[in-house]
């Protein structure tokens, strides 16, 4: 089982420009990342199975200090894999953070008021489900195994 979140936005811009900002290393690096971080995209291979590697770096001394307080390095690198691609319509990639895996799908649809984005986040997370707890997925897989046994 996965946890799922949907985020939606409508952009008043042509899809060609939006697509460029999503799918080029320079474009993506210009906006992507949490508050207080800057993002550098190292590799962006626009094909299914292609690599999408980026580093997020604390961009202010305050954020770097925050990270240090939490025992985290001021920068972290994510190695993702592109799992689906349809130009001007859809891009999906899978990221792995330790034992967590997140599938993100961005779907673009032209509407009267602009380009609508539907962003779907799906997590199959073991660590986030708590300590030694197994993830939902593996829990249910084990359930299925157990139920398949006689007795």
């Amino acid at each position, binding site marked *: 089982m996965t946890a799922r979140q949907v985020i939606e936005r409508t952009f008043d811009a042509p899809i060609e420009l939006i697509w460029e900002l999503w799918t080029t290393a320079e474009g993506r690096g210009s906006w992507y990342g949490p*508050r207080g971080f800057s993002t550098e995209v190292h590799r962006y291979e626009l094909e299914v199975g292609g690599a999408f590697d980026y580093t997020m770096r604390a961009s202010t001394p305050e954020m770097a200090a925050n990270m240090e307080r939490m025992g985290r390095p001021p920068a972290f690198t994510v190695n993702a894999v592109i799992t689906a691609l349809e130009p001007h319509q859809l891009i999906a990639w899978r990221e792995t953070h330790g034992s967590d895996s*997140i599938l993100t799908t961005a779907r673009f649809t032209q509407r009267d008021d602009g380009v609508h984005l539907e962003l779907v*986040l799906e*997590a199959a997370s073991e660590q986030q*489900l708590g300590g030694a707890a197994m993830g939902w997925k*593996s829990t249910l897989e*084990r*359930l299925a195994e157990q*139920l398949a046994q006689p007795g």
Partner: protein
Amino acid sequence: MRERPVGELVQRLPIAQSGVSRHLRILKDAGMVTSRADGQRRIYALRREPFQELSDWLDRVRQHWEHSLDNLELELSRRKAALSPSPEDDT
């Protein structure tokens, strides 16, 4: 979290007692439920923590994206403006 004895769960589910006990044992091994003995009965309850952690994590991911999409809107306006120069620049 509300506690329930195994017998009550069996009544609510289309599964035999042995099946329910097996499900519960696995959920307990996975840290999703707790159990305690009450005389001959065994009482189960959901653990709040795994669900809370999942919900907190989803909130963080959502914040990250809302902030990124605000940035994207700014960047789009900047680039749209650059693509269509104002008449004064057209000299």
